[in-house]
């Protein structure tokens, strides 16, 4: 069935592992509208996988299927070699799939540190009583989690806003905090929903660097959706192209760039 042993080597010499997730013939409908129609693709461990397409192509729906916000009517999601039953988003998160949102979903009233700490909820196992007594396991856990979170904060260079309530931050920094929270979960797969949306050139460059560094430093598998072709092509190892809810291309950035259907979708028929 699922052959998880095959890896490959990228152009710049990075070793990519076997298949960690596979989407098989996914179809998602809202009432009479078909948002995703019979799409299949796989994600290998350690790669940066992009899903691109014009607005309304169904990219976000696909991300929501992966993260459990939508359950598809047809098709199967395979994760780490097992078929995944229909799940709630929080269950998917607990399986190690973290995500960010295009419109940013942060806890605005909490500080940056608290926001990022919530990303560690999956790693906190101490019971309420031992937490109340602040003893043994609970104390050790809190210290370890805080130390991990501080590494992320350092990594994303947000030390100066550690104690700032998120609501007061500018857009670009919020995006970074959201990424930090997702990273804090030590995800097996990191889903990024248009990470560069609404950013200026400089912020985009920063974010691209962070995405590459995350992949490089932690070996995190990243699935990102983006409609800015330029950014995606530089970042990703392999690209799925969607249009009108269908898959019209899949391959390395170079392969995809030469694909006639893709060129048509982007240049020929604009529909937004």
């Amino acid at each position: 069935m699922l052959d998880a042993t095959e890896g490959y080597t990228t152009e710049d010499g990075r070793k990519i592992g076997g298949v960690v997730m596979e989407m098989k013939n996914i179809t998602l409908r809202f009432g009479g509208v078909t948002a995703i129609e019979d799409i299949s693709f796989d994600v290998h461990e350690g790669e940066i996988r992009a899903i691109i397409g014009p607005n309304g192509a169904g990219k976000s729906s696909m991300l929501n299927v992966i993260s459990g916000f939508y359950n598809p009517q047809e098709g199967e999601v395979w994760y780490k070699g097992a078929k995944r039953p229909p799940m709630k988003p929080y269950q998917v998160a607990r399986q190690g799939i973290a995500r960010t949102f295009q419109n940013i979903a942060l806890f605005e009233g909490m500080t940056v540190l608290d926001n990022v700490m919530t990303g560690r909820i999956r790693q906190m196992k101490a019971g309420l009583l031992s937490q109340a007594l602040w003893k043994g396991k609970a104390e050790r856990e809190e210290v370890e989690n805080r130390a991990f979170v501080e590494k992320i904060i350092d990594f994303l260079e947000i030390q100066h806003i550690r104690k700032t309530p998120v609501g007061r931050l500018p857009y670009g920094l919020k995006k970074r905090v959201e990424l930090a929270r997702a990273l804090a979960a030590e995800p097996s797969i990191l889903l990024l929903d248009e990470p560069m949306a609404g950013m200026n050139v400089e912020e985009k460059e920063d974010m691209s660097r962070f995405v590459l560094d995350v992949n490089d430093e932690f070996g995190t598998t990243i699935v990102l959706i983006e409609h800015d072709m330029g950014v995606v092509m530089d970042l990703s190892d392999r690209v799925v192209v969607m249009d009108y809810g269908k898959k019209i291309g899949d391959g390395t950035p170079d392969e995809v760039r030469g694909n006639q259907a893709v060129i048509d979708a982007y240049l020929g028929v604009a529909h937004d």
Partner: protein
Amino acid sequence: MAQSSSAADGLSSIPALLQRNVERMGARPAYREKEFGIWQSWSWAETAAEIEALALGLLNLGVDEGDFIAIAGRNRPYFYWAMVATQCVGAIPVPVYQDSAAEEMAYVLDHCGARFAIVEDQEQVDKIIEVQDQLHQLEHMIYIDPRGLRKYDHHKLHQYSHVQEQGRAAREEFAEDLAARRAKLDYNSTCVMLYTSGTTGKPKGVVLSNRNIIEASKSSAEFDHLTKNEEVLAYLPMAWVGDFIFSIGQAYWCGFCVNCPESADTMQTDLREIGPTYYFAPPRVFETQLTNVMIRMEDAGRFKKWLFDHFMAHARKVGPAILDGKNVGLGARLKYALGNLLVYGPLKDTLGLARVRVGYTAGEAIGPEIFDFYRSLGINLKQLYGQTEASVFITLQPDGEVHSDTVGVAAPGVELRIADTGEVFYRSAGVFEEYYKNAESTASTKDAEGWVATGDAGFIDEATGHLRIIDRAKDVGQMADGQMFAPKYVENKLKFYPNILEAVVFGNGRKQCAAFINIDLSAVGNWAERNNIGYASYQELAGHPKVLETIKSHVEEVNRSLAEDPMLAHCQVHRFLVLHKELDADDGEMTRTRKVRRGVISEKFEDLLGALYDGSDEIYTTTEVTYEDGRKGSISATLKIIDAEVVPVDAPQQEAAE
């Protein structure tokens, strides 16, 4: 002055001081750095071990005696260790401004012929790689943060911690050599080479010996009774002589702890957490802090604001006198104590200055209101006057003798002389050895008897006996009628207004003075916000009629105050304009230390300068600008030229016209 090659107590190098500190107080903290949200600390003993490991590693990489090692990064213990490790192996540390452009860095590295560079991260590595074909002597680079560098070719690139590990592993092989090299260091060996940015021409490498650094540190530490219990926050550029003296010279001499902030952006928080007892900041920092306080008070509730205003008024009245230990009535003292409880204390705490015992500012003139504000809070803020060539200290203000318009008395061991031209000269044990590979400049700055020209014009204030600096000697010129023209003096007066960020005054060889002005975007922007004035850019705000009106009133106030000083009354500003762009080091208009480059500016804005003197009302101009990422662009604008009222000066002063 007979100069022996070693100090009286045998402590004739920084490594020797390190050794002494390990013996005397090995367990006391020497360095702290906030990382991952926690203050990590290293004792003197641990510091010595780190430095030794690095020194051995440097030997392992083949560092020779007399080599130059460039060091570029923000204030971190690792870089301070790198400097001392460099000294230990008989090489010379050359700290470089880490934010300098690749070309500037290339010049310095090439000029000293650095074989090694110790840098922070990928950014610095990339910068040096970009210019490496100009640097034939550079062999190895050592970096601290490995992030993003994994894929680089590591033949000549080494991670700091690996160099240390290899050093530890090779201890047997190199320990003897290291000990021998360390033993050779004496008072005459070079301690550090620092490049001065200079307002004109290429940077010069100032060679400072162990004698210079240790003598200057020793006498200044005694002057202010610094002890091993001081806490300092190292946040000013490591390439600047002040940081070298405070964070290495005095720190090793006294044995106090140097604290490094988490990042440049967290400096204010870190300051508050450390609560330094000995603190230096350029006037700009004090200014910004004060502006922030004032902005916050504008937004505060009515009661809070009333409390603040009420007690600040009292503090201004009696605070400085209490600080100077003068006679103040009991009632006023009690009220001051109450104010301390309610306002001054919490405020000082917020500013991170609650524990400051000795605070200094220097580099530029500080506005009297700003200076008095901090002193009235009970912070012992003083001024000093110094130079790289003097190992910082030329004059210092003693406790209890502090004035906002003077820079104090000669520092211990410093002789002062004012030349006929008005230029200030000094001589001391801290006087630099030479400018590296620049005998000509050395000779023109330091004479055979050891007197050094400061390049500043000044005089000894009769009332106080303190030195008062007027201006750069070369900037002091003559107006068309032969009277003294002191642009910096006028500029500083203008810059004391929070709304004015920079000012450039012209008038040399002319009949009257005129000025370019830069508004302060944060101060004026804040004012605009409060008054519902919309603006999209600096340029738009700078051209707003109301802003121009405000600036005009500032200029006229300055004119009135100048008119009271007979020496300078003729320097009143007759006409001015507000520039359409901020003066910027990236465009070459300022130095990296933010001093205006008069020559560059008057050439670049020749058309504007012409308009100031030809009587026109406005002028259209286009200027090339460099963006942060190095791209070029241009902006154009029509600028209004404004006539300011001047106070008529009765008769030209006879002496001045001489």
